[in-house]
């Protein structure tokens, strides 16, 4: 096989230049994305791409390099960069190449039926998604974004300690953003689906979700500033968890960048709060059998009924702490060095539905969307202050939509004030990890408005 011969040549060159253990990581994939605007296929994108990275140990330090020109002309550059990069490392934390786990569970994240779906069917689907949105309500002034996309990816990991691992997966996604208009009032609503079963995408249902969201927000206004009981709806709660995922990394803890340092086996959250990382979850879009270092992945409870049970480890951080790796080494792509990331990471769901939780509140606020998550929070301090959309709850009922408000608090404090988790576990759009949460009822957060 062509790739094997290239890998052999890279390794040979590395040896000549004095590299010790080496690892080659190769990934390739293709993608398609279709966007519709006013009944026309407005954008049609396709790609075929590949990349290769090399990491290797020189004088006990790990150097990294990568290339997107995957051929023999890149060998010299790859090896030279690894050497030059290894030389300047002066961290004492040892990074090493892994010989392999005893056992790997099989994970099936490739669905062959997806590649058999014809392009015509996909185009038909995304056009019908836009059409459905306009049909549902006269106040839908435009459909801002209406997209269907899918992609296939495969990775090969090969190292000089005798480990060779391969994996392939595919995924499809669709999302729609609608604009509702009534007089001067403009509101948007969004809905998405992800997964690798095309037949589960139902244009009518997805369009309705986005339209309902936008229409319900029409006529929104602000609310008086103050401390309120708050329910953060599932998708918003998942986004908030995603933004704070870094605090569970052992790397952040060891580098004094996480306030969870020294809190293992301590109660850091409410009894109602259990946080799970499950790489083998059914339909999990971050399911995998091995992590970025080739270590077999494992299921773990990160927080169990409020008690912090573990951090996320890779081989380096685990060695430093004298524990076993949790199989959470990340390699975002061939362009990334080894980091730390969860897989399918979610808050365990509770018993009751969202509407039952709402019915309990005499006065409160239901937050449905949080904005500016990349800037309005500080994962080091835990402080957040975020623009939000939602609804005012009065006497157990949704009384009116809210806009131009912010919700502020501290994540570490908030975890202790979770009074209930809903039964409506929902996952966000997949990135490096696939993160989910049910709706969370919080005893008091600060709301700013009028």
């Amino acid at each position: 096989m062509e790739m094997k011969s290239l890998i052999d040549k890279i390794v040979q060159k590395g040896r000549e230049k004095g590299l010790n253990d080496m690892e080659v990581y190769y990934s390739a994939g293709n993608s398609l994305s279709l966007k519709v605007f006013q009944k026309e296929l407005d954008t049609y994108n396709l790609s075929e791409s590949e990349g290769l990275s090399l990491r290797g140990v020189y004088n006990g330090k790990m150097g990294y390099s990568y290339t997107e020109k995957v051929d023999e002309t890149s060998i010299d550059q790859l090896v030279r960069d690894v050497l030059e990069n290894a030389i300047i490392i002066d961290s004492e934390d040892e990074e090493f190449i892994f010989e392999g786990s005893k056992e790997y569970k099989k994970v099936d994240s490739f669905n062959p039926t997806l590649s058999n779906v014809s392009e015509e069917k996909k185009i038909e689907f995304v056009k019908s998604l836009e059409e459905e949105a306009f049909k549902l309500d006269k106040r839908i002034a435009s459909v801002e974004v209406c997209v269907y996309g899918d992609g296939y990816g495969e990775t090969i990991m090969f190292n000089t300690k005798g480990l060779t691992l391969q994996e392939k997966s595919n995924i499809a996604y669709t999302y729609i953003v609608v604009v509702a208009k009534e007089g001067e009032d403009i509101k948007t609503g969004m809905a998405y689906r992800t997964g690798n079963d095309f037949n589960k995408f139902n244009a009518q249902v997805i369009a309705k979700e986005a339209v309902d969201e936008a229409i319900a927000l029409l006529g929104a206004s602000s609310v008086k500033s103050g401390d309120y009981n708050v329910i953060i709806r599932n998708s918003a709660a998942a986004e908030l968890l995603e933004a704070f995922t870094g605090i569970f990394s052992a790397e952040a803890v060891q580098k004094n960048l996480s306030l969870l340092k020294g809190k293992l086996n301590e109660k850091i959250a409410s009894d109602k709060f259990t946080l799970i990382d499950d790489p083998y979850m059914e339909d999990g879009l971050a399911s995998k059998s091995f992590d970025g270092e080739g270590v077999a992945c494992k299921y773990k409870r990160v927080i169990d009924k409020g008690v912090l049970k573990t951090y996320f480890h890779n081989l380096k951080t685990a060695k430093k702490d004298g524990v076993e790796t949790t199989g959470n080494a990340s390699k975002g792509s061939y362009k990334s060095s080894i980091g730390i990331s969860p897989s399918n990471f979610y808050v365990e769901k509770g018993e009751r539905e969202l509407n039952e939780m709402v019915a309990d509140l005499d006065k409160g606020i239901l937050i449905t969307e949080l904005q500016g998550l990349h800037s309005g929070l500080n994962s080091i301090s835990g402080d957040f202050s975020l623009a939000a959309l939602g609804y005012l709850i009065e006497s157990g009922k949704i009384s009116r939509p809210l806009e131009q408000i912010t919700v502020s608090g501290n994540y570490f404090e908030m975890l202790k004030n979770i009074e209930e988790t809903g039964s409506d576990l929902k996952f966000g759009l997949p990135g490096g990890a696939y993160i989910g949460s049910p709706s969370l009822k919080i005893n008091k957060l600060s709301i700013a408005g009028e």
Partner: protein
Amino acid sequence: MLNRKLIEDTLTVALSTGGDFAEIFVEDRTNNGIVMIGGKVESTMSGRDYGIGIRIFKGFNSVYAYTNKSDPDTLIETAKKAAQAVEGDIIDLTINLTKTNVKNINIIQIDPTTVEKTNKVQVMRKAYDTAFNYDDLITQVSVNYTDYIQNIMVANSEGLWKEDTRVRSRLGISSVASKNGEMQSGFYAPGASKGYEFFENLNIDYYAKEASRIAVTMVKARYSPSGRMPVIIDNGFGGVIFHEACGHGLEATAVAKGLSVFAGKVGQQIASPIVTAIDDGSIPNEWGSYSIDDEGTQSQRNVLIENGILKGYMIDKLNARRMNMDITGSSRRQSYRFSPTSRMSNTFIDNGSSTPEEIIANTEKGLYAKHMGGGSVNPATGEFNFAIMEGYIVENGKIKEPVRGATLIGKGSEVLNKIDMVGNNLLQSQGMCGSISGSIPANVGQPMIRVSELTVGGREGEQ
């Protein structure tokens, strides 16, 4: 980067099914990144991005395909696949490429690939030492070093054929201060379209101390009050307010389809008469500058708002068709993996007539935002948000105690009219802007301004 014959053949195949415009973009980029945490080099990554994108227009619709392979068979095959998505009468276009030299506005003195990595680490160590030794409360400092050289080629069926090289350098310094079990951080990340000379001439001492000063000030600060109040936003990164509240809404991406609140408003008063705003990708060596955009158009100074009146938008080739307006040299993309579209470059509110001292002295009660974090906007509704990294209470015309953890929110169309004082100390600051065509380097900027009323989202009640 590709020979003339291959480019012409690829473009011809791209137009073989009825497309009326085809473009090929080649990118060959060398990246170099070093991360230092706690004074130790933790990780380094170097690599080469290489890829080719082919774009076809048919009326208002577009097709984009990319690949990493540049051999003739793959390119022709990719063009063929892309062309399959186009249907229509075949237009007989003769492609006659003329290679034009690009006038380089970003003169580079030292090619970063010629500099030993140990020298780069020295720069980082100086930043680390200065930031860490600033105060006993500083418990951690991270330093990020980045340089890259991006070589591009763009050619299209109109005969355009250009090559350009973009070199950028940036140093990020992040300090953490701890006190009584609490942590706060401060951040500064200067950058420029310069080579290694950027680091040699950089006032590292100043930026490192600023990052630590912000962290130390904030760990001692109480939480910000909430509610509507006058807000003074300082120069430099404060310009993120214009970037979010208005800039994105003036990109053709949002305007062409009538999805922006500013669509159809050229010639109308959309801001307070003291506001003039510019997007200028042609300022030599600035972080958001480029000699040609990613469609091969020379960068230029675009007046967006003059004395409160909307003058124009930022427009790329495709959206120019829908808008029936001229392109403005604003088409950008993160890499060959993205189809280019209209984006900001160096975007700023121009100088006004007030001094910063006057603005503060004339504010009876409000909030002073000295350093800002990032933000975001929904261009359809105009709702924006951005975070205050370092804030202070203003009372009786004086700056009082520091406050932390506040976000400012509003609607773009409203806030522009509420700018009631504009200072005379314009400063630009560097950031990364994420949108439909990826994450790109962009400057934000402004002199100190005052907004008569904004919603401040803090954790304490009203003042």
